[in-house]
């Protein structure tokens, strides 16, 4: 690791001075090394920082912590991308308050791909939204787009998993240090993304997931993406903050329609009302990116086909009863009680049929509510 980078890591290790202030200092002193070399009075002379912040920087002018971090970084093969690095994502250079440092694990080239799409949504999302997120993630990835998300529970994870099901081009941006897997239950996903995709964080090694980190993380998701798809979001949610960032950065915001009155979708429905583009299939997003128009015509066919034939295959092996139930569910009778009324089938038989369909991954029954999985 070269000397300059060590000072960049030092700068990023000062966690109680904001990124904005660090950026301001960099405009004056050019490199982190120069900031380190500058005395308190030098910084005071610029008149850009308050005395409190100058004191904080002065207090942390030691490389002990940095050296420990460097050892950790080298051991775990974490890639450091300071703002002045040639590998720094071009999309981020253009945003307001770009991170002074990015830590990365995985395929660093992914941020420079032609097309990137952010997928965000509620942490407590409906089963249907998760399903859609996964499908879209997979389709985007297969078409060659890079899916950017936050690896939060719910929609974010589903989108990333979908992309991994495809060719695996996905970037997860963290609200914690790159080595901190949050939520902890996503450990498996974390490993998979590191393997095939890219993990990114602007936060110093070992930083916990503080609530204040997430809005900052969202500006990076928006910054890295050419467009943002809001799958399902509550009012006042992180997903809406990401959408706001995207709009400020002049990017298109897409939203998926969900049922009226569903709490977890009020935010995304609000976006639609305000003029976000409504999407019901991945092509709705693709058509906005001119370069891919050719791809759109050729690519969807082969990937659509196996899915279709799988669906047909599933339907072929259905018994008469199962077909009848499936028909009714597709027509919108989505409760067990409703099916009893509509089909006039005894509950005993209906339970047996639904269990069979569940085992075939056609439907999922939870608290009397039936969700279609195809």
């Amino acid at each position, binding site marked *: 690791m070269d000397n300059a980078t060590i000072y960049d890591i030092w700068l990023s290790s000062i966690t109680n001075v904001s990124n904005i202030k660090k950026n301001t200092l960099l405009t004056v002193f050019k490199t982190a090394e120069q900031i380190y070399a500058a005395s308190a009075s030098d910084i005071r002379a610029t008149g850009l920082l308050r005395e409190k912040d100058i004191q904080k920087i002065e207090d942390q002018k030691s490389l002990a912590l940095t050296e420990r971090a460097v050892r950790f970084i080298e051991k775990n093969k974490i890639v450091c991308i300071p703002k002045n690095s040639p590998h720094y994502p071009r999309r981020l250079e253009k945003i307001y308050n770009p991170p002074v440092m990015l830590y990365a694990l995985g395929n660093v080239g992914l941020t420079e791909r032609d097309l990137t799409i952010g997928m965000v949504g509620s942490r407590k999302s409906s089963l249907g939204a998760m399903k859609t997120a996964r499908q879209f993630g997979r389709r985007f990835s297969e078409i060659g787009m890079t899916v950017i998300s936050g690896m939060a529970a719910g929609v974010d994870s589903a989108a990333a998993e979908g992309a991994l099901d495809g060719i695996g081009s996905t970037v997860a941006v963290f609200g914690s240090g790159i080595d901190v897997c949050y939520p902890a239950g996503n450990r498996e996903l974390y490993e998979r993304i590191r393997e095939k995709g890219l993990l990114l964080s602007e936060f110093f090694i070992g930083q916990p997931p503080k609530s204040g980190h997430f809005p900052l993380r969202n500006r990076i998701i928006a910054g890295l993406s050419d467009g943002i798809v809001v799958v399902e979001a509550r009012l006042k949610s992180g997903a809406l903050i990401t959408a706001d960032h995207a709009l400020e950065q002049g990017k298109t915001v897409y939203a998926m329609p969900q049922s009226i009155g569903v709490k977890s979708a009020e935010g995304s429905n609000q976006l639609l009302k305000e003029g976000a583009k409504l999407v019901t299939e991945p092509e709705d997003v693709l058509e906005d990116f001119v370069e891919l128009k050719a791809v759109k015509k050729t690519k969807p066919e082969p990937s659509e086909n196996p899915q279709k034939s799988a669906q047909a295959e599933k339907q072929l092996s259905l018994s008469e009863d199962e077909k009848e139930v499936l028909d009714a569910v597709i027509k919108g009778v989505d409760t067990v009680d409703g099916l009893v009324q509509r089909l006039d089938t005894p509950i*005993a038989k209906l339970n047996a049929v639904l269990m069979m369909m569940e085992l075939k991954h056609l439907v999922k029954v939870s*608290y*009397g509510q039936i969700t279609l999985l195809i």
Partner: protein
Amino acid sequence: MLAKIFSCGLLGVEGVIVTVEVDLNYGLPGFIVVGLPDAGVKESRDRVFSAIKNNGYAYPDKKVTVNLAPADLKKEGPSYDLPIAIGLLAASNQLEGDFSDTLFFGELSLNGDLRPVRGVLPMVLAAKREGFKKVVLPQANKTEGAVVDGMDILPADNLKQVLNHLKGKAPIAPYQIDSQALLNEGQASYRVDFSEIKGQDNAKRALEIAAAGGHNVLMSGPPGSGKSMLAKAFPSILPALTLSEALEITKIYSIAGLLKDNIMTHRPFRSPHHTLSNVAIVGGGSVPKPGEVSLAHLGVLFLDELPEFQKTALEVLRQPMEDHEVTISRVNATLTYPASFMLIASMNPCPCGYYGDPTHKCTCTKNEIRRYNSRISGPLLDRIDIRVEVPAVDIKELESRAPGESSKCIRKRVNLAREIQNERFQNDEGIYFNAQLEPHLIDRYCVLDREGQDFIEMIYNKLKLSGRGYHRILKLARTIADLDGAEQIGLIHLSEATSYRSGQ
């Protein structure tokens, strides 16, 4: 002179014949009771003294010794007042005759009135077993005693009536009732009928299967979805009580002093609050009293809000669920009470209660839900065959619906299924319904055809079933096939059985 009178004490749910010996000696007038009496028995001296005096008889001016045999059994309560009084009068030659085929018990008031005592039914049953012919007891206990066939029940209002009877002046007519008629009369009505519950077909079906095969049930659903109402309606689809079952339950309630009517005509439905202690569940006290598991004997123990119960209280349930009886040891006695009950439990899907409810927002985190669910231990869950999700219902939508099937209809099917099981298990000692099947019996009675075997193998792998889980599905499938009247367990039965393990 010595007099010997027979009475009865209680040991757990059984009556024990107690011989009351009264002896008069020369010496300073006094009154001594031996044979491990408690304070209630010792105090009978003053009640007996006044009762004899106030009925125109003389209390002997001698040293009175009363022995209650067997001498190593603790005697408690005031039910020995009457036999002691009779013994005193016989010993002082104010009363003559042979009372060796008669049992006496009852509490005396100072003017000689007889007051009711508890545990009458087990005591009368003990009298019958030991070959006694007649029982003299307080008027208020007469129906409880008359439930036992083949005994002369002689109810009396006061000491005078008893003495007139014994002297032959005014014999008391034996009191008789038709206990079967009493039972049938009581069984005509139920608190909640299934036809009053609209919708929830899935839960109703699960309860029907539970009733048919004696399976334990866990219902999970948001507040207001009707879990408690379903549980309350559940006894109405259980098979009707037989007379011997009714007597068994009445015995327990009689001992606990909880008998309201004369005989228990319904299967008990116990729904204790979730703050109850271990002792309240299994029973206890210096002389152990029956706990909730015994009070729910041959009936239903309903635990609402299962995860709110103390963990230890739930764990003590495991042994009675397995053995169908519970043994309690205390300093004074070690007693075994029957405890063959069905467990119906209910819980919310998460701490706030609204997980999976489309109209409310669930505010719980994944971890909170996991912690909430982990309050119920695996071994307890293992003993619950049916787990059913009860969704929230839209009241407006339900109002438009026709009423569901009545409890009577459902009970008919349950009875048929029970008959099939009775026939099947007639050679298996102690097995009455499918839920009791042990693994080696499952292999014998739950035979699958080719198709069924393929299916269960598939779900075994797919759902990662445990050995117990596998057996549970087979037991349930057996009950479902019995309800269907089918000899062979079919694919449709297996598939339905699998659906009641949802969520796990």
